[in-house]
């Protein structure tokens, strides 16, 4: 790094320009990562916090994929799963979107219908009848506290408790009893009609999921895989991840392009050093070390800026998640991909002919 350090100090303008580009890309990637995680949480936290490891959907048609929006399961399907060997828990879960009104305030909410007293029910045994449990955001948006009454999909209900801050498909969750959920869900009802949207399962290694699916006429996936069955999450997350991927690729290309030009500019110096006896390995280490220093410094500053902006906006209504996973992982990927781009560029050092250092040599 003897020459590399001095190059960094000597060509300050060029390296500062490149460093600024890295800072800006890192800032953008950091903000996008936090936003992606925040939006993802607003889409999925009600599902990811369920005490279940698998979700059983009504079997979709030929070539179809499970969907929370389209799935409806019957009581018979639920009981079939409950009887299945190796299943330690099977709970029906109804999901519907509803309008909640409290005085002059109203909000769109996701009504999650569960059996009162079951493992899925929040707030202990306070659910049931007209008693519902609000998530913190629903309570805040509607200006409600425990004991207050409001209207949910045309039914007057009472707030039994405010618990957690679960979201589903960008709407806060209101937990209701399964009976109330059936009443406020137009497609649910009737003796043989749908009982719930899905079945939340706790399985063991003894569970033959395929056989149980065939017996119940369901399609079962893991809880995390079921997130792609939330339509808004699949499209939104896919778009944001694509943008993030492009930013990573752009970063690697920009760093690679910079070091390609830089290496070409230095090819005369490299030829001299080789003619003087410098090994190619030493020159490659120096060049790569220089790239990593630039990347690390740029990424560190960019990540710091992203964390600062994230901390600022996450106190507002912006769905931004500031965790080591959303801050440090993108930074590490930026450095790794940038170093890869630089490595591909500086490898041209191996092809520099030391003979060119002798001015008039052929």
């Amino acid at each position: 790094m003897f020459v590399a350090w001095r190059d960094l100090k000597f060509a300050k303008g060029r390296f500062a320009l490149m460093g600024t580009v890295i800072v800006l890309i890192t800032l953008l990637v950091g903000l996008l990562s936090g936003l992606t995680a925040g939006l993802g949480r607003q889409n999925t936290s009600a599902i990811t916090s369920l005490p279940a490891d698998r979700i059983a959907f009504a079997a979709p048609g030929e070539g179809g994929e499970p969907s929370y929006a389209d799935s409806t399961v019957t009581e018979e399907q639920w009981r079939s799963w409950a009887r299945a060997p190796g299943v330690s828990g099977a709970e029906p879960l109804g999901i519907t979107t509803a309008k909640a009104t409290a005085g002059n305030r109203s909000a769109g909410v996701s009504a999650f219908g569960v059996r009162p007293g079951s493992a899925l029910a929040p707030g202990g045994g306070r659910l049931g009848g007209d008693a519902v449990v609000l998530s913190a955001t629903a309570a805040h948006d509607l200006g409600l506290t425990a004991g207050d009454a409001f209207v949910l999909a045309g039914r007057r209900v009472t707030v039994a408790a405010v618990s957690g801050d679960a979201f589903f498909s960008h709407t806060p969750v209101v937990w209701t009893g399964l009976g109330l959920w059936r009443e406020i869900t137009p497609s649910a009802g009737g003796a043989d009609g749908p009982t719930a949207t899905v079945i939340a399962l706790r399985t063991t290694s003894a569970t033959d999921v395929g056989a149980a699916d065939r017996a119940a006429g369901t399609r079962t996936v893991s809880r995390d895989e079921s997130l792609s069955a939330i339509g808004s999450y699949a499209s939104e997350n896919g778009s944001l991840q694509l943008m993030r991927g492009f930013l990573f690729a752009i970063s690697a290309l920009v760093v690679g392009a910079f070091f390609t030009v830089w290496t070409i500019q230095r090819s005369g110096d490299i030829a001299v050093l080789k003619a003087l006896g410098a090994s190619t390995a030493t020159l490659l280490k120096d060049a790569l070390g220089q790239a990593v220093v630039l990347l690390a410094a740029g990424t560190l500053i960019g990540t710091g800026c992203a964390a600062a902006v994230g901390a600022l906006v996450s106190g507002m209504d912006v769905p931004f998640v500031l965790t080591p996973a959303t801050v440090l992982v993108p930074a590490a990927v930026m450095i790794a991909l940038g170093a890869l781009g630089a490595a591909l560029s500086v490898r041209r050092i191996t092809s520099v002919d030391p003979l060119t250092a002798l001015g008039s040599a052929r």
Partner: protein
Amino acid sequence: MSLHLTDVTLTYPDGGSRLTALDGVSLDVPGGSLTAVVGPSGSGKSSLLAVAATLITPERGTVTVDGITTTGMTRAELAELRRRGIGIVFQQPSLLPSLTAAEQLQVMARIDGRSPAGARGRAMDLLDAVGLADLADRRPHQLSGGQRQRVNIARALMNDPTVLLVDEPTSALDHERGTAVVDLIARLTRRQATATVLVTHDRAHLTAADRIAEIRDGRLRIPAAAGQARAS
């Protein structure tokens, strides 16, 4: 300490045929002596220097540096031989723009795997020997052409080589500075006891050489006795 080229032949592709750059060249240069090789452009001077510097492997013949024959050596071994046994003074000073004069010399220690900081004393001694101790912290753009060439010479001597190869060192200098540079090379050759080969197209500065060999069409003609140039 010596350099021996024995029956060296080198050709380059030239369309459908091959052009002979060196034709059975043999040259013995003992330590502490300066051999100047003169000849017109295209006569094979730079090819001779490139072969002696182990930058080109000849088709035929051997190159021996301080008793080590280079035939069959790998690139890595040749690079090690260059950094430890051969000093090269380039036609253009070819100094690294980001390094000061002292650092231009210290980098030689770095590429040899030694601490550049530990080599500062040796670098200062050599800069003193070429009259640039006061300018040790200047970068190339802050030095004149002659000063840059003297840094170039000091750098070539940094790893205490047994062979010093000098490529047209006066081409960018006026007569007075050119003569001063060649005199400096001759003085350092004797002080460091290097086997020095200096190639040039210009005979004007060669009074300090121990002997002057002439190259033409790849064939080297060497005067019978060493010391001829100084005596004449």
